[in-house]
């Protein structure tokens, strides 16, 4: 008796949408009206396919069991019927129409980018995201924050992995709930794809073009996603984290960010006058290098040629200082070398150039100061 009830319970759980919704076997329902519509469409098609599957596979298995030679079944001779052919051409067409109608409605809804309350430019680059709030003077990069020790078992022992392993960033995108937030999505280098499943938003970031997407989040919370388009070596290491806040908290956060940006600009100015010691430069330089440069040029400076050249003993790192600074600040067109001028502070730029000129036996002895960077790169 008890066993039978449990059986029914399991069966009921299997077929009730609610149980499917947040299971790890199925698509998320998400937290927006659109994501709910998408989920319902997904379930609709899944159920239709299941029913057709049961009928077709049922007939096949029926033949396999009852129309077999070993049971002495003699083959019938029929081999065509125009009536039946028309029937199983026309019925599927009607089923498809029944699927296409709600799909069209949802699609029209998804593509309506009008009347947004807030616009955020999302820019992908190898392998990080950049967010810029239009007309708010706030912008920042968002980089994977899972430490290398957790994911790199090749060179280390492999530290304990955290709860949000590979799905955590140093600075998350923050948006208000119940507001129409429009994303303008583009890329600085290759094609990336910005995807947050909870919003049912996935839009490619295409270099030189701007794509639109939007969302209205209903519930506050932290939502995680990943880059969905193969974008090179560290494609698996550029997650997306979005925090949705109630409107007043969002406004406070935005104001805080704006003030922080002003303070950072002041600090940039002040840093021009400062002279750092070689030790300070090397310490900051190494930290910056590990975060921003080591993915391509490697911690040991040997790079991954031919795509990512070595810096150890390279003509750039031991050659002309201003040329070196210029490449770091402005990047190199036609290669994977990004322009770090807008990603790093003057201090960090000076430090990282110093580090590259003195690490791994490059030993040029050059100490590059913030003022040198500004002068050489014409910033």
């Amino acid at each position: 008796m008890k066993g039978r009830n449990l059986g029914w319970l399991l069966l009921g759980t299997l077929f009730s949408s609610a149980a499917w919704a947040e299971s790890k076997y199925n698509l998320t329902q998400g937290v927006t009206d659109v994501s709910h519509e998408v989920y319902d469409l997904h379930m609709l098609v899944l159920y239709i396919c299941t029913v057709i599957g049961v009928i077709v596979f049922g007939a096949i298995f029926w033949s396999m069991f009852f129309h077999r030679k070993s049971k002495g079944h003699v083959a019938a001779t029929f081999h065509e019927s125009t009536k039946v052919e028309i029937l199983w051409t026309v019925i599927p067409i009607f089923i498809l129409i029944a699927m296409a109608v709600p799909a069209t409605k949802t699609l029209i809804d998804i593509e309506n980018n009008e009347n947004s309350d807030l616009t955020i430019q999302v820019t992908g680059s190898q392998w990080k995201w950049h967010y810029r709030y239009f007309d708010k003077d706030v912008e920042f990069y968002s980089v994977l924050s899972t430490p290398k020790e957790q994911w790199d078992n090749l060179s280390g022992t492999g530290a304990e992995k955290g709860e949000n392993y590979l799905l955590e960033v140093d600075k998350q995108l923050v948006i208000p709930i119940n507001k129409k937030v429009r994303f303008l999505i583009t890329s600085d280098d290759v094609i990336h794809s910005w995807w947050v499943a909870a919003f049912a938003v996935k839009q490619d970031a295409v270099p030189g073009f701007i794509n639109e997407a939007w969302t209205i989040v209903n519930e506050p919370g932290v939502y995680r996603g990943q880059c969905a388009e193969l974008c090179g070596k560290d494609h698996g290491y550029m997650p997306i984290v979005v925090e949705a806040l109630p409107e007043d908290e969002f406004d406070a956060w935005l104001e805080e960010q704006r003030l922080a940006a002003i303070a950072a600009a002041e600090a940039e100015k002040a840093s021009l006058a400062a002279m750092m010691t070689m030790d300070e430069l090397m310490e900051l330089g190494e930290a910056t290098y590990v975060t921003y440069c080591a993915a391509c040029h490697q911690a040991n400076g040997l790079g991954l040629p031919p795509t990512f050249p070595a810096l150890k003993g390279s003509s750039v790192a031991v050659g002309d200082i201003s040329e070196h600074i210029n490449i770091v600040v402005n990047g190199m067109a036609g290669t994977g070398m990004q322009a770090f001028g807008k990603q790093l502070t003057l201090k960090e730029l000076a430090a990282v150039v110093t580090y590259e000129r003195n690490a791994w036996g490059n030993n040029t002895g050059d100490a590059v100061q913030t003022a040198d960077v500004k002068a050489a790169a014409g910033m």
Partner: protein
Amino acid sequence: MTTTATTDTDMAHDDHGHHGPATGFKRWLFTTNHKDIGSMYLWFAFIMFLTGGSMAMVIRAELFQPGLQLIDPDFFNQMTTVHGLIMVFGAVMPAFTGLANWMIPMMIGAPDMALPRLNNWSFWILPFAFSILLMSFFLGGAPNFGWTFYAPLSTTYSNGSTAFFVFAVHIMGISSIMGAINVIVTIMNMRAPGMTYMKMPLFVWTFFITAYLLIAVMPILAGVVTMLLTDTYFGTSFFNAAGGGDPVLFQHIFWFFGHPEVYIMILPAFGIVSTTIPAFSRKKLFGYSSMVYATSSIAFLSFIVWAHHMFTTGMPLVGELFFMYCTMLIAVPTGVKVFNWMATMWRGSISFEVPMMFSIAFVILFTIGGFSGLMLAMAPVDFQYHDTYFVVAHFHYVLVTGSIFSIFAAAYYWLPKWTGYMFNETLAKTHFWCSLISVNLLFFPMHFLGLAGMPRRIPDYALQFADFNMWVSIGGFAFGLSQLIFLAVVIKCIRGGAPAPAKPWDGAEGLEWTVPSPAPYHTFATPPKID
């Protein structure tokens, strides 16, 4: 008919005795015999299948657990890319060309392919194409931009492999085009007297239509890789926005090739199971003419659905709707085919020889791949599925349990005709059951991984995906190892076994069964008469 054919063969022997097969390596290098070339294609495809399969096992070993264990992400990308290229261009397509070479002349009562020297050439350039591709591993790194080689990752941002890749693809393309021309010319001109188009075996029909698809789209592939080459090395900007080009243009051209390509890899499979299912159901194929029309409709539709691979690239709404509707429409002719196979089995007299086991598995598992295809066709939901493991599950269901299972069915069906011996049935059944169980363990959980949000082509993943990935990897290793059983069956069957009669399957139909087993070196020197 049987007697006529045998006499013809004997005569052929006398006539051609002075230039029968040469001995040693020269036989294979200079051969213009469709059976020799067919065998070489099949062996080449199998070697490539094992090569590409080993790469898949490297991928699955890395993904066995979260964290980077064995290989670095760049090498991981090389593995996924070359695995895809080899399986598509090196395993599935040459295997089908091999079957076409062996069977089409024998099925239409022709003595050989129409253009035998072209045939020799189209095979022998293939090993060079794949040597160039594989050589790149040792010369600065293999292609690492995905088998779909989206620009600008494959141009400005590629490692040094783009040139190797482009030249290899050019050679594969030339080989495919020549093979396709040969198939079309043979079918059009060399059918036995009385064999009208609507009397051709469905197998021949599907290869006929496939050959047209190849001729239509292979030049487009050649075009797009050439644009890629000039963008990378000669300063053009077809796919570079900074020079007035468009990276999305690349995807349009690529998928205009790529979608018909998908059907190039499945239509011949339809032909194979349309041959085997009637044979082992001892009942004629249900709806022969509707099968021909359905195949043609699928081929036509394949040209107007390409952008369903690109719903997230920022297409306008009208474009998304058009491609969504056209894609959903493909379910109709594909459904007709599945229903026809179902009706062929219905009230038949079914027995379960190994080719039939693979064919039934094909129908069911391919249909599962078709269902997920229908789900992917729905543009709004595709925003969630796109570029996740759901897509990986989908195309492996249609390609592995679809195309490759059909190739196994064909191989087991015609092995007695090819070698003159029956294969070891116990071993072959072991191969079937091991493959069936492991392939589902390998690909079914990928649906769940994709729905739960795991992107494809990543070397490492978040912790919630860990247990399924482990199951998938175990399935992958098991499926890979199971294929060694197939190798053993084939080698044993070539070496000996119970002698095969001219027609080992009592329900089989077709001209190929009117010649003795093994099929003589020259068959149908005088065409048989079809009533």
